[in-house]
């Protein structure tokens, strides 16, 4: 049998060619920073800065490059030596490694990308050296910053998370981060950073947007070091090692997916068939059992008026249908329940689903941004004050609500703890076939989503959006789907019984 083992071994070794691809990825900079950068290093760092960084962070490192006004959070002003993501104690400068890591990995949820693919390790260290010249604090520091020591980790458990939840109230995290952690606390709207720019507390349920990553250690460090330049203080005085881990565990217990990664994008939104009445209330337990689909939303930067800093960054959608109607449940996080107010420049909050009026037979379809002159779209829009409206669009500036008699959709929506939940319903088929899409099972229907946060000045073309995805109403399964497998089981069982009987007979012989 030696040959068989050999073959097995060979087979098991073949794929190793495919596994060796991760070689190039060095883990967060193995190399050490140069102790004292040479003038050549600083010159090289300056050239890199001017090529890649200056247009956001400014030629003088003042965070006022041409892109600065169009980004939120704004690019960092380096002159104060205040850096968000540190492993060092409260009030201290970041370590060189901290700066290096942010340059390497970027900052999730912001306009800062990782530079690993573009800059070599040596170049990133040169950049670190150059960045430090923008603030005098680095040159003045007599000793290197003291790192935070991470004590023994308490594993994530229900008890620990419950204790963390208690601490969350006790040290008043909820005041900014909100009762359920969606960044909707009572103080949230007034928060500003050290430069006076409005700043948002993290939505603790979206760990993929955490600026310094979402490992347990990263969360621990943010609690202990604070986020410099932002209203997030250090809790080193009130939280010992154990309490810090409880709080970390509480935050992690809020995540829908324990990995903390963003929900996977699914190209096809599926509507499942259900029997009987579909619950109209978005809070009903029924909806917990329906498959969720998540779509990231981005700013509408295609037509004027553009929105560069959208508030809503994603929407979760569930869809079911019965004999008569289609029901869609939309859930999205929005830190404020906005009211229309002309003086304040605020509007109602809203979300909409877009379909083409005619499901295209070929590839051709309306322009995803509210249709075009040739092909119209239909919008099912729910507003926090105006309720449900059906509209038709032949372009962003040609959007018209349908007549009163053609409004056949209904919706129930509610706002709670920084989250909207809305169930929209529409009959599958309508009378107004010229303006309404007629929903048929088994077809791939283009679908897109929009959201408006009125407190962020979003109305009309200023909105967060997706481009076209697919919507698919699952047809009832044909009967053969059940008949053939049953038949197969019966035949296979019969054959097997026959084999067993034969074998027993031969034994008797």
């Amino acid at each position, binding site marked *: 049998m030696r040959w068989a083992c050999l073959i097995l071994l060979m087979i098991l070794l073949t794929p190793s060619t*495919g596994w060796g691809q991760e070689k190039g990825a060095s883990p967060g900079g193995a190399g050490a920073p140069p102790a004292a950068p040479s003038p050549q290093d600083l010159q090289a760092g300056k050239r890199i800065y001017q090529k890649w960084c200056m247009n956001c962070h400014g030629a003088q490192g003042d965070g006022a490059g041409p892109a600065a006004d169009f980004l939120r959070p704004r690019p960092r002003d380096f002159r104060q030596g205040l850096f968000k993501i540190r492993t060092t104690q409260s009030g201290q400068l970041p370590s060189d490694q901290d700066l290096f890591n942010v340059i390497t990995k970027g900052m999730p949820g912001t306009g800062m990308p990782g530079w690993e693919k573009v800059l070599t390790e040596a170049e990133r260290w040169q950049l670190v050296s150059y960045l430090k010249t923008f603030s005098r604090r680095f040159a003045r520091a007599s000793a290197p910053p003291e790192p935070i020591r991470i004590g023994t980790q308490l594993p994530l458990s229900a008890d620990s998370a419950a204790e963390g939840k208690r601490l969350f109230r006790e040290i008043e995290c909820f005041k900014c981060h909100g009762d359920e952690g969606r960044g909707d606390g009572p103080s949230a709207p007034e928060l500003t950073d050290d430069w006076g720019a409005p700043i948002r507390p993290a939505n603790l349920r979206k760990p993929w947007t955490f600026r310094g990553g979402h490992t347990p250690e990263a969360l621990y460090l943010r609690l202990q070091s604070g986020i410099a330049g932002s209203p997030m203080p250090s809790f080193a005085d009130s939280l010992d090692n154990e309490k810090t881990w409880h709080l970390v565990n509480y935050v992690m217990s809020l995540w829908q997916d324990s990995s903390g990664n963003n929900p996977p994008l699914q190209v096809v939104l599926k509507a499942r068939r259900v029997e009987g009445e579909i619950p109209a209330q978005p809070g009903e337990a029924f909806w917990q059992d329906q498959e969720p689909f998540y779509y990231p939303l981005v700013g509408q930067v295609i037509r004027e008026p553009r929105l560069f800093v959208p508030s809503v960054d994603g929407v979760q959608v569930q869809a079911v249908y019965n004999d008569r109607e289609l029901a869609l449940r939309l859930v999205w996080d929005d830190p404020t329940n906005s009211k229309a107010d002309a003086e304040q420049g605020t509007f109602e909050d809203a979300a909409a689903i877009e379909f083409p009026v005619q499901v295209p037979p070929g590839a051709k379809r309306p322009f995803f941004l509210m249709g075009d002159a040739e092909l119209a779209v239909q919008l099912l829009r729910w507003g926090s004050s105006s309720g449900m409206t059906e509209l038709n669009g032949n372009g962003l500036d040609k959007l018209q609500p349908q007549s009163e008699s053609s409004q056949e959709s209904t919706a129930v929506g509610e706002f709670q703890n920084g989250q909207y939940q809305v169930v929209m319903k529409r009959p599958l088929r309508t009378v107004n076939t010229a303006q309404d899409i007629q929903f048929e099972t088994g077809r791939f229907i283009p679908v897109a989503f929009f959201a408006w946060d009125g407190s962020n000045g979003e109305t009309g073309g200023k909105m967060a959006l997706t481009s076209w995805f*697919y919507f698919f109403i699952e047809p009832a399964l044909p009967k053969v*789907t059940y008949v053939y497998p049953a038949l197969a089981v019966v035949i296979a069982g019969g054959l097997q019984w026959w084999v067993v009987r034969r074998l*027993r007979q031969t034994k008797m012989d």
Partner: protein
Amino acid sequence: MNTRRGIPLLVKFVAVLVGVYVGVRLVRPPLPSSLVMMYMTLTVCGVLVYVSIYAETWQEFSAPLVELFRGSPERGGLWQGGRQVVLGLIPLLLGFGVYQKVTPSFTPPAEQRVVHPAPPFEVMGLTNPLQQRPDRLQEHLELGARVYFQNCVYCHGDRFDGEGHFAHGFNPPPANFVDAGTIAQLQESYVFWRVSTGGPGLPAESTPWNSAMPKWDTMLNEEERWAVVLYLYHQTGWKPRTWE
């Protein structure tokens, strides 16, 4: 062949099959399933030939199978229970296989898309007027940078690789200018045309209804558009294609 005892032949048989299957599945890039099927058929045939070549090996190989189907009264309760489970599972697994086969699977229609459609006649061969003024290069590059970082960066990104912070919201994804397949193989006039008319200016074969590229001639003047084209080539290090 019965010189060596130890692992039963049937177990080896299964081990070889599993080993080959896992090995074939681990090959990257993944092999097409028809090829996997062919390899597995070959393996099964080969191993069957091996076990059936002598009467003794065939006996050794088939005995446990025969025993399983026939039943063996002298075996213990655990074995008897296990036998019942296995015999029950075989038809059910087959049924499940059939169920998987007959359940209709729905895949969205494939989207064909021409990435670089032919430009209209009037934009062919235009030259970048800013190239005529090398003395003002720095000024033009600064203008191009400002235009890029106030308009394009959200999708095309700080690294010019099409991975801006809004890029994940759009399909088709924003163009990657670093890639050798975009501006590197295009003329400046072509890039200027794409910037100027955007998604809505695409012909039908390039699915204009899906493109999030704005029609920039409504938001940027001609100099700004030429400046951003100049800046793109400068930053990425590519040279625009020319007709020699």
